[in-house]
């Protein structure tokens, strides 16, 4: 992939994201390794990491619930869905559950405006949400994990 670009660092943003998906988060070791491969300093890589909202340096729960509360979702109850998730999981914004299974995050527009309210569960879109649908999703994951 890195051969597509005239400079080595051009591959940085997708590389960070893909490595984060593999490792779980951008650990010091991961950042160091990426810096070496792109011929940058660790600091230069951290500088980029801190800019992008999907990149993170700390591990999070296995299932990341990203609830959109931006305007189109707001109009159709996005904030209520987010509130419901908080109560259901017993966590606040950007927190993981104690068992490390879930992470909850309020996010900006994810491009599901006509099918609001919506969220992403890791990379999967879930749209036209209701509190019941959210419960089903969460219970479904809990059951799957127990088996």
């Amino acid at each position, binding site marked *: 992939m890195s051969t597509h670009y005239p400079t080595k660092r051009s591959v940085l943003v997708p590389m960070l994201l893909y490595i984060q998906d593999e490792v779980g988060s951008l650990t010091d070791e991961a950042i160091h390794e990426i810096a070496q491969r792109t011929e940058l300093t660790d600091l230069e890589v951290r500088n980029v990491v801190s800019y992008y909202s*999907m990149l993170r340096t700390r591990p999070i729960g296995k299932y990341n619930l990203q609830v959109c509360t931006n305007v189109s979702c707001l*109009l159709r109850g996005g904030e209520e869905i987010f509130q419901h998730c908080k109560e259901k999981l017993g966590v606040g914004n950007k927190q993981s559950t104690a068992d490390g299974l879930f992470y909850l995050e309020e996010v*900006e527009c994810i491009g599901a405006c006509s*099918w609001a309210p919506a969220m992403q569960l890791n990379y999967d879109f879930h749209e036209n949400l209701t509190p019941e649908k959210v419960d089903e999703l969460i219970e479904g994951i809990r059951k799957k994990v127990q088996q």
Partner: protein
Amino acid sequence: MAYLVSHPDEVKVVSKRFGLDATNLDRYLELDGYKALQKAIGMGPDAIINEMKASNLRGRGGAGFPTGMKWSFVPKQSPKPKYVLCNGDESEPGTCKDRLIFEHDPHSVIEGVMIAALAVGSKTGFIYLRGEYRYLIQIMEKAVADAYARGFIGKNIFGSGVDLDVYVHSGAGAYEVGEESALMESLEGKRGIPRIRPPFPAVVGLWGGPTVINNAETLASVPHIILGGGEWFANLGTPKNGGTRLFCMSGELKRPGVYELPMGYNLKKMIYEVSGGMVDGKTLKGVVPGGSSVQILTPHEIDVAMDFDSVMKAGSMLGSGGVIVLDNTMCIVRFALRVTKFYQHESCGWCIPCREGTDWMKKTLTRFHAGGGVAKDIDNLKYLAENMLGRTFCPLGDAAAMPIISYVQKYRKEFEDHLDGRPCPFGKVAEPALV
């Protein structure tokens, strides 16, 4: 998954292949796929640009700049390689159209990128998708690989002697990267901070080479223009506003969804006929016609033709085509606060009017909505926004300021109803969670 809707008034051009399994290359070929590219190879650069100019196609990302003209700014001779960059970092609140194009018709974007590359004499195209659209990145990567396997992309395409490469690139979550110069920074592996202009990307862009940057919908329209002719496309719309547009209808509507309608279609009809009107029990309070960055229109102002010039005349902007419909149960202060929180979160922090202005507006609105507002706050908000306008590096500052000015101007009474420690008349206090 995002479901498709349809209405008899729709004119399907870009959405022609939606729902027809066009991600499959064989199926795409049956549906006239890659014919436009072959035709464009025979036409040559000047004829392609002339056809684009005749089509009156204007950029679908939001600014509405004529595409043919943009392409013609690229110098013919350049010591550095030229590039074509497809902006698929769709993140304007209220906009969900590019997603459908990538999902249902990925090859049309590739074809558009390649035709643009032929027109400006570039050998490399990049398709930048936002990182959240992982499933679309997979669809696009497969589409590109399939096209390479058939020899539609790569060396000597269709025996023309032209070499052309197309790559898919992923972002990692940033609204600001949708701005063209920040997009280039991001693609170069840096923080998405805008560049000063001039020089414009058409002269000095990616890695210093001349670069054409177009929205995904713009590029997906290109093959249809090449096949159908610029004049045919121009006649679908209104003067100076050629073709059709994907309008993303959202809010408490009976039939929300993405509809492809001719440019200049009436906004009132779009809401009451195409989208079926408001859900039962709710009435219309206002319409944001082009994504969260534009001015709101009151119910008296919505009898307007949806093309760039008419909406501008009505005091707003056509923007990205995201039509957000507010109902009577939504508090305008709460709405303003949510919009401002978004811009505060997404401001890249590079220039001060935007970084400090959005933060100050957010703090004021948070306090105001919670009942701690004083009368002076209302004018202060407007004053603050007016002083951000035109004073920032990139349009994000304007995008944060323009809607706030319009909310205060048009719904001042509702702001006043929050004064004197009175709780929000709509009974909901939004807690600031995103900080």
